[in-house]
């Protein structure tokens, strides 16, 4: 499955300066692994030591918050958009 992954500016440095990249995979875990293969260290920025999505990162597949729909096992339909968002923005 080919998907578009949109990233915040704060993760741009982890993927070579882009905020929108293409990736592939059946699930979110696959997609992150695919990105990590091309950009080593990406997964560690988004996932914690136990391999879960960091508490301060939200991941959406389309409009669905992945945390409430299976986490990293969330299916990623072909052509969908994945958004990685800082859960809390700096500066109130």
């Amino acid at each position: 499955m080919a998907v578009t992954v949109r990233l915040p500016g704060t993760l741009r440095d982890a993927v070579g300066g882009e905020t929108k990249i293409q990736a592939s995979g059946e699930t979110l875990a696959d997609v992150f692994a695919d990105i990590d293969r091309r950009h080593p260290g990406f997964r560690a920025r988004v996932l914690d030591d136990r391999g879960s999505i960091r508490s301060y990162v939200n991941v959406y597949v389309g409009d669905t918050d992945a945390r409430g729909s299976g986490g990293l096992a969330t299916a990623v339909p072909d052509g969908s958009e994945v958004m990685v968002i800082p859960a809390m923005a700096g500066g109130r």
Partner: protein
Amino acid sequence: MVPLRRIGAGLRGELWAKLESFNPGGSVKDRAALWMVLDAEQRLDLEGKTILDATSGNTGVALALVGAVRGHPVELCMPDKLSVERKRIVAAFGATLTLTDPLDGSDGAILAAREKAKDPRYVYVDQYANPANPLAHEETTGPELWEQTGGRLTHLVAGVGTSGTVVGASRALRPKGVRIVAVQPDAALHGIEGWKHMATAIRPLIWDEALADDHRTIGTDAAIAMAKRLAREEGILSGPSGGGAVAAALGVAREQEGVVVALLADGGERYLSTPMWE
């Protein structure tokens, strides 16, 4: 203000927490919001105008509350997909929201507010550049801290977001010999709401590094871990930034003697829908 008897046990310095969650709007931002609106009332004719600002949460709640009390419409630019509590509280006070791309964070909200501010119907209070923001802390937070410690305060530890708290309190307290400790998140991607990683963010115009004596960083995991300790060991339900401030203050009180106060900007209730408490 309360002493942290368990977390602060065995340290060289005394460790205290100033709980800003007891302000009417539930956060430290009530101070800046009130001062900014009163300043706008004095300088401008607000008849027919809408107060505008960019905020990822607490300032929005505070401005909405002050606007309701003072009779001004309020519009807020806020990143989409923030915790639902914020949006509902702001709406309850009658303010309207413009949601910005969540991928752009608070900086995206700032840029949206700047664009809207070109319309003369708006009065853009701009908490990041408004001198009334730090003035609120110079005239209230700083003197309160001095009074509540009976003049014994030696160190104030506070996070930097707009920087209003650090800048204003510094102006009030440094002349009395108090050392100011400014704390930032340790990475650009972080979960300490309200704090800015200055190296990668739009720099607030009111920020002046020279007004702090000591600059420290705290990671999100450490901030959240300390917020949980505050709840379980001290009975204080804090947000992530409160945990971060106490974690930094703990380091200061471990190293130095004196009366060390951490400023806890808000309470934990506003984060109940986030993974922080899962």
